[in-house]
């Protein structure tokens, strides 16, 4: 493992909604996966930057050609602007992490959705070329499992914005049969919630970003702990609306596909280990913050003899931290050299 002393090792969770980085120096950063370029010279003078990233881009979106370059956890196909946006996000994250200046070599492990196509991994490689010195791309749920050392007889359910990844850890690097990726995830909940709110409150004006915020703050399944009341403009006037039922229905839409996938993967586990896996289901990703989700999944497992569903402590950084763990454990020979 020679040379690790001069190396900055980083783990990156490249997410549809947010991307996070964890570094060997202990730094952790997260940015919203948005990139915006000024739409014209006026905007450029107002913004005073050639490109804005993350929250800054969202806040100034009226002045920007705004891109959310990842769709279902993958780089959108066929758009050079989106590829450029991914480069900006990754460059920004690595820039935030790189305290040693340009001389410092960077090794990166990047987590991507479980069933990412090879062509998209290759695209990611191209993007990373010249940006880091060495690269390993891993399945995101595998990274989560590795990070918390849930390596054997566990199931990771990584509920992100664009995808939900399921992965059974059998003490080996997960194969196709060990993993599933669903597009039922945070974004699909947002879309449904927006539709339900619009149906019930047709006069209310809102954006998908507001809906996302409501879900993240109040998301729940099962019984509500109280009314979910939010404020949004109606004909220009701030108005309070009750969206309890809409939030519940939207979040509840995850339960059936999650349950089905969970049971499907469990059935493929060797019978003697199924009970252990059932009692070691781990929720990760920001979807794990939906109140009552673990309990609902446990109800589904009860039909099979019971199970235990828990959630990672830090869903925002669990993926990036797992990638960092892999980076720190990997030998020199494990890395793909990425010098341009």
């Amino acid at each position, binding site marked *: 493992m020679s040379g690790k002393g001069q190396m900055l090792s980083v783990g990156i969770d490249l997410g549809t909604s947010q991307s996070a980085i964890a570094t060997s120096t202990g730094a952790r950063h997260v940015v919203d996966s948005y990139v915006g370029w000024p739409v014209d010279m006026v905007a450029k003078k107002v913004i005073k930057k050639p490109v804005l990233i993350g929250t800054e881009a969202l806040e100034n979106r009226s002045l920007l050609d705004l891109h959310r370059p990842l769709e279902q956890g993958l780089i959108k196909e066929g758009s050079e602007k989106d590829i450029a946006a991914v480069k900006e996000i990754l460059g920004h994250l690595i820039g935030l992490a790189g305290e040693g200046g340009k001389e410092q070599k960077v090794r990166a492990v990047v987590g991507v959705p479980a069933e990412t196509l090879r062509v998209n991994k290759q695209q990611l490689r191209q993007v990373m070329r010249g940006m880091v010195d060495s690269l390993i791309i891993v399945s995101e749920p595998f990274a989560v499992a590795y990070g918390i050392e849930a390596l054997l007889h566990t199931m990771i359910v990584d509920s992100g914005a664009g995808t939900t990844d399921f992965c059974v850890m059998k003490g080996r690097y997960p194969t196709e*049969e060990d993993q599933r990726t669903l597009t039922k995830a945070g974004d699909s909940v947002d879309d449904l919630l927006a539709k339900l709110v619009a149906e019930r409150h047709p006069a209310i004006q809102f954006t998908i970003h507001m809906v996302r915020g409501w879900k993240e703050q109040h998301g729940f399944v099962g019984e509500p702990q109280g009314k979910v009341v939010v404020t949004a403009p109606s004909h220009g006037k701030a108005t309070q609306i009750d969206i309890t039922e809409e939030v519940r229905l939207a979040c509840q839409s995850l339960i059936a596909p999650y349950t089905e996938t969970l049971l499907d993967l469990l059935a493929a586990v060797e019978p003697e280990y199924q009970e252990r896996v059932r009692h070691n289901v781990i929720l990760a990703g920001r979807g794990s913050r939906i109140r009552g989700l673990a*309990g609902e999944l446990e109800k589904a497992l009860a039909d099979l003899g019971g199970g235990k569903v828990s959630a990672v*402590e830090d869903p925002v950084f669990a993926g990036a931290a797992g990638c960092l763990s892999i980076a720190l454990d990997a030998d020199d020979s494990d890395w793909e050299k990425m010098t341009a």
Partner: protein
Amino acid sequence: MADGVGTRSARLPFGGREDRLKRRLLSGAVEDNLRAIENRPPGRLYRRRRVRWPIAFAGLAALAAGALVLAPRLGWGDFAEPTPGTLVATVRAGDDAAASDPDLPPTRVPAAVFPVVVRRVVLDPGHGGGDHGTRTPTGLTEKEITLDLARRLAERLGGAGYEVTLTRQGDERLELRERARLANERAADLFVSIHVNWFEDGRANRGIETYFLGPTDDPWATRLASAENLESGYALADVKQLLESVYSEFRQDQSRALAASVQRRLVRSVRELSPEVADRGVKSAPFLVLVDTEMPAILAEVSCLSSDEEARLLAESDYRDRLAQALFEGIQAYSHSVRKGG
């Protein structure tokens, strides 16, 4: 509500085995990256999917590490190499007291003692349903080929008077143990599992290999066996019982003879068309589907989809007929040799 999970040490039950397990996982991740870089199809950890590794590795590791201890006591060291005319029985011939003592070694008796006739054959088309097996970028799948070959072979065997059963009739997924159970329930005389290989060491490689149940001398498998054995939870007594039941019965020799017969005809037939195809030989390995069967059983890797040329040929009906005919002739030749007493 969910409990928080996140402290690494709290999740790890392995103690000192942690590093080995992590190393294996990392190697898998690196291999997955290499596949993508080299534009190879996604891996399926080919062998591992077919084997109940905790059991198999327990046996393998015990063979590797404990053979010196166990062999003299079990009498394994006294075994002569099997010959075509020899069957191995699990009882000591002519010694009733010994027959009931599980600690005593099995003894060889002449094959002619057993009036063996091959009547029922169970054919097992590998994979099925959601388990595609190997597949080419053009969508040709192992599960489809194996089923088609099994049907062609069944037709030939049926025509020759055998009672033939297929473990699956269509595109359905079957657990390995279900396949073995079906063969056992049908009281089959032979079990032939049909598969198509994938060689990781190059697209140009073409070869045929046939497996029968037994220990492996593959150093990679042995290395893994040592690691896996620590996690198996099997006591030495379990391992010994397992090995006695698996490796000491007469069916191992018969399986080897069947495998040799099938392999010989497959290679001969395919080389008529493609002389460059490698004879990768008859090999032993503890495949679960073979472990659980109670009759002579083989697993034939009749071709390899990793080769572009083989993939092209496998799409042709004539080539599939050729493979089915070779399998048929292999089974026939074995059957005749058994009927003649070796």
